[in-house]
C-alpha cells in the first residue's frame, strides 16, 4: 500500500505546492507501471456499469415468459441474436441483440436492498469488520492512472459504492445531475484564472511553512490531492462531463432523462479513457403497479443503453469497453395482490456487453415458471470475476487491509466460460 515517505516531500518545494503540474508525479511510479502492464494484455480497457437500482423484474425485461401464469401482460420480441428474446418494451436493445449477452441464472441469498446493493457492487455481503471495495474501487486502484486529469472512477445519477479499505482516493467522483459539471469544478464568482493563481501562490506559502514546521507527510499528501483537483479544473478534457455541445438528435436518442444523459456522459468519459463509470437508473422496486411502472423505466433503459452500445461501436470503443447492466436482485415470478412483484434474489438476469466478451450468448436458464434455475447458478463473484478477467485483473488478487487482513478482489469467483 502506498505510503508517503519523508524523502519524497523534501525533494521539491515546487512539487509540494503543485504549482508546476507537470512536475507533480504520484510517488509510487510502480503503481502506474503495473497498471500499464495489466492494460496491455487486457481485452477491456474500461468498464461501464448500468445500475438498475431497486431490483428489476427479470420476467418483464430480459427473461420473458409470455403466456404463462407468472408471465404478466408483456409479450416477448425477437432480437438480432437468434437465441435471445426480450420484453417488447425494449425494442431498441432488441436491435442490438447481437452485441450483448444475457446471464439468466444469477442467484444470491440477499433479499434486503442495502445488503444486496453492497453484494453486487463489492462481491461480498456487508460485514462490519472489513470495508470491501466496490469493483470501481478495485479498477481505480489497479488500473487507474494517478496522473490523469480526470478521475478513474465516476458515478452518474447515483452514489455507487466507495473503495473501502483501498482508500477514499479510489472512490467515485459523483455527479448527481449528469450532463453538468462535477460540483465546484468552476471557479467561484468573481475569481478569474489570475486571481486563482495568486490565491494558490499564497496558499503554497502557508503550506510550505506548516510542512517545514511539522515535518508531517500528510501535508504533502494533501497538496497532491489539491494539485490533482486543479488539474481537473484546468483541463479541457473535463468538458466530457458537459453534453451541451452534443447535437440535439444525439441527446434525443439517449433520452431526455437523467439516466439518458448519464449514458451519453458515460460514452464521452469512455472516449476520454475514464476507467470505470457507473450510471444509475432508480425506481425498479415495483412492489405495486409493476406493469404500469416498468414500461416507463424500460423505455429509459432501452434508449440510453442501446444508444450507448451503438455509439461506442461507431467509435470503435465497444470492443474495449465492458458493459454490465444489472440490479441488486430480481422480482418474484408470482404476481402479488397489488399488481406488483416482490424481491426475488433466487433467479434473475444480468446483461453483459463489449469488452471482448462473446455476444449473443444466453448463460443459464430459469424454469418455465421462473421460480428455479436449471443447473448451477451464477453467483455474484463469478460475474465480477468475468469482468475482472476481461479488464486484465486477477480475480483472486489480494490486498492487505490496514489491519493486515488479506482480502481478495472476488470472493472466490470463477469467470463464466461461455462468455470468453
Amino acid at each position, binding site marked *: 500500500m*502506498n*505510503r*508517503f515517505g519523508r524523502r519524497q516531500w523534501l525533494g521539491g518545494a515546487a512539487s509540494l505546492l503543485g504549482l508546476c503540474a507537470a512536475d507533480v508525479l504520484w510517488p509510487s511510479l510502480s503503481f502506474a507501471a503495473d497498471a500499464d502492464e495489466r492494460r496491455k494484455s487486457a481485452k477491456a480497457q474500461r468498464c461501464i456499469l448500468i445500475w438498475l437500482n431497486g431490483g428489476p423484474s427479470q420476467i418483464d425485461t430480459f427473461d420473458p415468459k409470455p403466456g404463462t401464469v407468472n408471465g404478466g401482460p408483456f409479450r416477448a420480441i425477437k432480437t438480432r441474436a437468434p437465441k435471445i428474446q426480450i420484453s417488447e418494451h425494449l425494442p431498441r436493445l432488441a436491435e442490438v441483440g447481437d452485441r450483448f449477452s444475457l446471464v439468466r441464472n444469477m442467484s444470491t*441469498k440477499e433479499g*434486503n436492498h*442495502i445488503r444486496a446493493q453492497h453484494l453486487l457492487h463489492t462481491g461480498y455481503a456487508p*460485514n*462490519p*469488520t472489513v*470495508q470491501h471495495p466496490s469493483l470501481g474501487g478495485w479498477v481505480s486502484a489497479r488500473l487507474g492512472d494517478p496522473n490523469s486529469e480526470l478521475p478513474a472512477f465516476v458515478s452518474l445519477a447515483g452514489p455507487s459504492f466507495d473503495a473501502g479499505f483501498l*482508500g*477514499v*482516493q479510489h472512490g467515485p*467522483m459523483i455527479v*448527481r445531475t449528469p*450532463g*453538468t*459539471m*462535477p*460540483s*465546484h*469544478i*468552476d*471557479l*467561484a*464568482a*468573481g*475569481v*478569474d*484564472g*489570475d*486571481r486563482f493563481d*495568486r*490565491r494558490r501562490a*499564497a*496558499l503554497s*506559502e*502557508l*503550506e510550505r*511553512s*506548516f*510542512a517545514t514546521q*511539522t515535518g508531517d*507527510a*500528510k*501535508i*504533502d499528501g*494533501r497538496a497532491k*490531492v*489539491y494539485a*490533482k*483537483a*486543479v488539474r*481537473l*479544473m484546468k483541463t479541457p478534457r473535463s468538458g466530457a*462531463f*458537459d453534453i*451541451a455541445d452534443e447535437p440535439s438528435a444525439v441527446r434525443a436518442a439517449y433520452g431526455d432523462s437523467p439516466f439518458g444523459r448519464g449514458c451519453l456522459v458515460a460514452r464521452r468519459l469512455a472516449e476520454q479513457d475514464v476507467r470505470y463509470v457507473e450510471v444509475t437508473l432508480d425506481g425498479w422496486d415495483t412492489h405495486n403497479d409493476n406493469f404500469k411502472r416498468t414500461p416507463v423505466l424500460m423505455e429509459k433503459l432501452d434508449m440510453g443503453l442501446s444508444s450507448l452500445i451503438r455509439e461506442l461501436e461507431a467509435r470503435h470503443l465497444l470492443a474495449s469497453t465492458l458493459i454490465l447492466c444489472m440490479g441488486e436482485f430480481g422480482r418474484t415470478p408470482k404476481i402479488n395482490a397489488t399488481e406488483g412483484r416482490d424481491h426475488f434474489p433466487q433467479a434473475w438476469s444480468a446483461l453483459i456487453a463489449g469488452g471482448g466478451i462473446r455476444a449473443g450468448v444466453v448463460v443459464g436458464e430459469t424454469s418455465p415458471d421462473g421460480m428455479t434455475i436449471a443447473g448451477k447458478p451464477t453467483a455474484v463473484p463469478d460475474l465480477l470475476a468475468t469482468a475482472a478477467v476481461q479488464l486484465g485483473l486477477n480475480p483472486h488478487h489480494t490486498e492487505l487491509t*490496514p*489491519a493486515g487482513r488479506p482480502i481478495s478482489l472476488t470472493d472466490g469467483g470463477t469467470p463464466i466460460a461461455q462468455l470468453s
Partner: protein
Amino acid sequence: MKILRSPIGAVVVALLAAVPGVPACARNGSVTSATPENTASSPPRTESAQTQTVAAANRLLRGEWAKTGTQPAAPADDATFIRRVTIDIAGTLPDEEQVRAFLNDSSPDKRAKLVDTLLASPAYAEFWADYWDDVLLGNDLQNARVDRQLFRRWLRTNFENNVRWDRLASALITATGDNTPSENGVEPNPAVNWFLKYSDSPQDMAGNASRIFLGVQIQCAQCHDHKTETWKQTDFQKFAATFARTKVVNDERAKMQPPPFRVTVTDIDRVRPGLLKEDMAWLSTTAPTTLDGRLLDKKQPRAALAQWMTSKENPWFAAAIVNRMWARFLGRGFVDPIDDFRPSNGADAPALLHLLAEDFKANGYDLKRLVRTIALTEAYGLSSSGGAEPPAGERKLWSRFRLQPMGPTELLHSLTKATALDAAVRQSQLDLERVQTELTKQYNFTFDTDESIDRDAFQGTVAQALTLMNSAAVATGTSTLPGAALSHLLATKTDDNERIAALYLRTLSRLPTPDEHAYWKNFIEHPATRARASLGKSEPTHARAADPLRKLETKAAGQRGANDTTRAYEDMFWALLNSSEFFFNH
C-alpha cells in the same frame, strides 16, 4: 432478569435491584432521563482524585517512553492547545476573544478550566450526540422505520445530562417500545431506533453491538471459524441468538402516514418469526450466550446481556469506550483498529489502558470525567512538531501529537464560525435553516472520515479540495457581505497588522509571526492582479448544479465598495481556510 450460572452476576443483579430506578432502562417506553442513578457526578468533589489519575497516567506513559527510548515532543503552546481541545471537545473553533483571553491568562490551571468550560457548553452535547448518531446509525441509513430526528434529540438530551455510559449502552441494548410518537399519546422509546437499523438480522445486530460496545469483531466468525482467534462460528451464533428473541410489530394504520413508520419492539420468549429459514434452524436450538461463554436468560436475553456487558467484571466494556475516546483524542487507540480487541492484536501501553478503564468504572462510567482526564494528560498536550519519528511500523506511543483531518461536523462548524457565515446568510434574507441543512448534508458526505483506524498517509479526495477551493459557502464566507466576518473586521480595524492578526486568530487560533505579518502586508499592499470583471470568466461556462448559496455568492462577488484591498483580504482569508493548518487538527 437473571444471569444463569454466574454467582458474580447474581450479586450484581441483587445490588442493582436494590437501587431504585434501575429497571427503568429496560422498561417499555422510557427515555433515559437525568435521574441521580443515571447521571454521573460532576468534577469538583473528585477533583484531587482525578488529578491523581492524570498524574498516574503521565507516569505510566513516561515509563513506556523510557522503556522504548522514545523522545516525546515538546509541549504544545497555548494557542495550539486551545484550538485543539475546542475542536475535540466542542467540535468547533474558539473565537478571537476566547483565544486572546486564554493566551493572556496566567493562572496555572487555565487548561483545566478551559476543559471544564467546554464540557459544560451546549456545543459539547450537540457534538457528541452527532458523533454517536454517526457511530450508531451511520451516514447512509435508508430505513423507513428509523425516526432519526427523535433518536438524535434523545442522544443530545443524554449528553446534556451526562448520562452514565453503562446506562446509555444498556438502554440501547435492551430497548423496547415504540420508535416514534403516536396520536394516542403512547410515549416512544427513542433508543429503539438503533435496534431497528438491524432488526432484520440478529447477526448484524450482534456483530455491531459487539464491535461498538465491546470493541470485539466477533462477526468475522459469522461465516467461518475466526482465522486468528479461537472463536468458532458456533460462538458467534450463540451471541447472535441473544438478539433473536425480539420482534418488531408494525402499526398497520401508520403505513398510510409518511415515514418513519411506527412500530413497536418487544421481547418475546422464543425465536421470532420471519427470519431466514436456514437461520431459524440454528437459532431455535442455540442458547443465547455471552462472548465468554456464560449462558444468558432465554426469556430476557438482551436484558441479561446488558447486565453482563456493564458489570464491573466484564473485561471489554470499559476498555472499549476508553480505547475509543483515547483514539479520538490522541489519534490512535491503545488497540488499533479501535473495534478490534483480540489476543493477536495486543494493546500499546496496556497498563495505561487498564488504569483508565478501572478509573472509569470506579467513577460512575462518567464520560465527561474521561474526556477531562484524557485532555489533561501530558500526551494530549504535546506538540505535533519535533520529537523523533519512529521507523515505519514501530509503535509511536503518542510521543508526538498527531495531525488528523477534521471530520465533517467540526470542519463545517469551524468554517461557519471563522467566517460568520450564519450572520451573512441571515442578513441576506436567505433561509438559514435550509442552508445549514444542505451544507451539513454536503459536508457529511464529502468529508466523511474513517476514524476506526490510524492511517499514516493522508486520505483525501478531489471533491474535498474542489469544495474548499470553489464552493459558494467559502466564497460567501470570505466575502465582505453584510454580516460576514471580513466585512466586520475591515470596518472595525483599520491597521493592516491588526487585520492580519484578526484573520489568523479566527482561522488558526493564533497570532501571526513577524515573518507572516511581513508576508501578508506585502500581499495586501501589492496586489498583482487588478480586478478584471470585464475580461475574467466570472460567470460559469458550464452547466452547474444547484447550490443554495449560489445567489449569495454572485451578490458577494459584485459587492459595492470592493477594491483591490478588500479583494486581497478575501484572497488571504481563502488561503487560510484552504490551508492544512486550518484543515488538520494538530
